[in-house]
């Protein structure tokens, strides 16, 4: 009789364990599918300082994220070979122009290959990036060699990748892949301190 009770308890414990494992698995799948759909994992980044960086623009001028302290900043990683980036960029241009007066700026960071050891190739690569910038009429600073700061920004496994920084330099949202202009605007408002 006593042994039966032990076995019964063990079975109950195992069933509880299976239910718990199923729940954990479901949560992991849900989180993964949400991120794949471009939804921000806001809790993972919210409130953390945006990783500092200094990169060059196409003219060779050094630009730092710290230069924009006091402004809300959208850090947008893109590449010339990324078609979804080309779809998203006109929205960024419009939103930048719409919210610039409120203290908002976009930093477009190209992750196109940069071959610093070969001046001829480097010139061609910069020309390719410049063509994209002209075609898209990007009015905001465009920096190059984004791969060099990729790790602190999560490795940049997909493009476009955007990070929304508030006026104090803290991350308030991130976005992997293209969602919609409305979604980006909502995050810009959050970075500006609007609700």
């Amino acid at each position, binding site marked *: 009789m006593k*042994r*039966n009770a032990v*076995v*019964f308890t*063990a*079975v109950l414990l*195992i*069933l509880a*364990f*299976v239910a718990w*494992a*199923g729940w*954990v*698995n479901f949560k*992991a*799948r849900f989180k*993964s599918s949400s991120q*794949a759909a*471009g939804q921000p994992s806001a809790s993972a980044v919210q409130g953390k300082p945006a990783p500092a960086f200094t990169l060059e623009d196409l003219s060779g001028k050094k630009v730092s994220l710290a230069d924009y302290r006091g402004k809300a900043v959208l850090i947008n990683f893109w*590449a*010339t*070979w*990324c*078609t*979804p*980036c*080309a*779809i998203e960029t006109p929205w960024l241009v419009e939103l930048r122009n719409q919210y610039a007066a409120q203290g908002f700026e976009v930093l477009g960071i190209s*992750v196109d290959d940069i071959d610093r050891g070969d001046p001829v190739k480097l010139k061609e690569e910069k020309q*390719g990036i410049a*063509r*994209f910038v002209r075609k898209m009429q990007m009015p905001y600073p465009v920096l190059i060699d984004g791969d060099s700061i990729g790790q602190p920004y999560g490795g*940049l*496994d*997909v*493009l*476009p990748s955007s990070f929304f920084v508030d006026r104090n330099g803290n991350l308030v949202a991130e976005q*992997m*892949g*293209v*969602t919609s202009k409305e979604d980006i605007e909502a995050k810009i408002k959050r970075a500006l301190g609007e609700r």
Partner: protein
Amino acid sequence: MIAAKKGIRMTVALALISAAALAQGQRSLADRSGRSASKPVEYLYPEQVTLPAGKPGMVGLHFRIAPGLHINSHTPREEELIPTTFSIPEGSGVRLEGASYPPGAEFTLPLEPKTKLSVYTGEFVVQARMVATAGNHLVEARLRYQACENNSCMPPKTITVAIDVIGK
């Protein structure tokens, strides 16, 4: 006594089932991340080919693209897009005389139906014209591609295409 034995068997069975369920859950997650991030394109076959030594021979190289992804064809429509290209490094004992790629399928992104792309999805075959010297050559050929989903792209990647080429 018999009931107790049955109970123990049941406990063991349930433990095995729960362990299997957990393992399945973990494998599914690993598969998904592997498919979308680390293995967008996989080389299928052949692993070994025999060619007449010193003479060109055609070899069909089969690749598979992970579901939900597409890669640019060998002739993308925009200059900026990265074409899929196959190559064999020099000094392999096998020379690539040329490669014939399948035509790309027309593809539009749901976000921007006006933009037409030329892409590969699913499985595709590159016909490679190779010349092997006599002997066994473990060739580490390369396929360079750039993969995207509907709303995002991954950085360009070069995978190794391992083929045992026998020149006879």
